């Protein structure tokens, strides 16, 4: 099934004289599991930031679920179904694990301000429903016994998992993972690989990940986009990318004839 979910058309993002993303066009379909790779500073995270509305692209357009995302607030983009995690973990550190997840349900809560103040029946029903959903999500990530811990007291790998769980709690159609395996040991990375597969299948969503761990990328991604100096230099299956000359050049540099 190839129903397009996210379409980037000629997206360019300039910061003053620096072009961080240069004329990038790409398409991600429903249920896709794709990776964006590239050397440091290639513009991968900037691309995520333009998709999630943190930056407004200098030119070009982002279309999600057949609707343009230009000039839409970051918070509204979440409501439309794009969730993300951050390269440097951004949890609500002084709140409990459960509250972190509950917060992500923000746009899916259907009781008004006064219902909360007067603690009406509807408030209790909704809160119970949300709590049950959150606990289910936590158990999927094997964090249910940590639900009362402050987020800051979790181990690093658990914090990364919690951030993913929190992103999923917003009920997205597209999940953006920014270096989910950074700082993880091989066992944790392996677990993460399984988890990403599980997430994609169980929640029936598309996943885009930025990752430097090539083993993970090659194992997991069905399609890979390669960025270098803000430009999309290659796209294709892991196999195609591994043998792509431009990609090898971007990572290892150009071969100069041994004339010395």
């Amino acid at each position: 099934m190839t129903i397009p979910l996210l379409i980037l058309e000629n997206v360019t993002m300039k910061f003053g004289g620096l072009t961080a993303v240069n004329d990038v066009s790409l398409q991600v379909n429903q249920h896709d599991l794709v990776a964006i790779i590239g050397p440091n500073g290639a513009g991968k995270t900037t691309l995520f930031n333009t998709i999630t509305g943190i930056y407004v692209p200098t030119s070009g357009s982002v279309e999600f679920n057949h609707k343009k995302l230009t000039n839409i607030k970051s918070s509204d983009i979440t409501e439309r179904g794009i969730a993300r995690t951050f390269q440097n973990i951004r949890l609500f550190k002084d709140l409990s694990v459960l509250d972190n997840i509950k917060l992500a349900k923000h746009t899916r809560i259907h009781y008004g301000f006064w219902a909360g103040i007067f603690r009406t029946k509807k408030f209790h029903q909704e809160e119970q429903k949300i709590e049950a959903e959150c606990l289910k999500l936590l158990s999927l990530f094997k964090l249910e016994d940590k639900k009362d811990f402050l987020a800051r007291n979790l181990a690093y790998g658990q914090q990364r998992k919690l951030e993913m769980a929190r992103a999923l709690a917003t009920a997205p159609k597209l999940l953006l993972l920014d270096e989910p395996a950074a700082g993880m040991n091989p066992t944790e990375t392996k677990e993460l690989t399984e988890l990403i597969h599980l997430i994609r299948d169980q929640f029936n969503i598309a996943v885009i990940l930025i990752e430097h761990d090539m083993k993970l990328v090659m194992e997991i991604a069905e399609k890979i986009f390669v960025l270098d100096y803000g430009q999309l230099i290659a796209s294709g299956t892991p196999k195609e990318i591994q043998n792509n000359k431009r990609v090898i050049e971007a990572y290892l540099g150009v071969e100069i004839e041994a004339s010395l």
Partner: protein
Amino acid sequence: MDYYLQILLIVGIFITLTLSLNLINGFCGQFSLGHAGFWGVGAYASALYTVFYALPVHSSINMIIAMMVGFLASAVCGILIGVPCLRLKGDYLAIATLGFGEIIRIIITMTEKVGGPRGFINIPHWANIYWVYFIALLVTIFMLNLKRSAFGRAIISIREDEIAAENMGVNLFRYKLFSFTIGAGIAGIAGALFAHTQQFLHPSNFNFMWSVCILVMVILGGQGSVTGSVVGAVVLTIIPEALRFAGGNISAWRMTIFPVLLIALMLARPQGIFGPHEFSWKKRRIST
């Protein structure tokens, strides 16, 4: 007896004021230094109503209207100052709100109709200790329930991490403006109570010192803790008064001893008496 009653009144009014600042400062994490300004707007606006425009109805009903006038006047000021200023962060917001507080005070001083620098006299005595504590109780319940609702969670998430909060679908500006406006409005109600228990208002009641004082109560009680705000307001109003009776040198030095106590307390518990938590009879689990 009057002396003790007066202290109880002030404690009750400061409970309401501290809670209202806690909404802005402790819940939402927006550093406001002009809170006495909102307090003053509420006090003067409500007194303006009761002295010049009071309806011919029972004084209790008029008092309710006066509190609504105080709430609305301060809330409108909250919106007017919030819309441009809430784009600022941290220190910059503090300076902008500080400036606002002073502007309010100077405008009041220059307004002849409310007595200007001579103060506003002849305000009817329509509120008493029951009014003060009834409102303090209502505001406490309001804050506790807000904290446990989705709305309150969204406000708290802004304090924790703005970028992540926005990423969870929280409209930052809307929630910041909401807490700022409601916080200002509740301070306005406290102002109305102050005006109608003291029967006299003076611009110097609402200067920068009092903004700082309310802020200290919030921080000492614990930012984000509702019960902490109540304790903060009670402790900080009562200690300087209690030191009066300590006798001898202690009484003479009470305004030196008081800050030293504050410093000691902040060193011992930098997160405030309760931290962000609520007072509870149940034992909290160590993990949290």
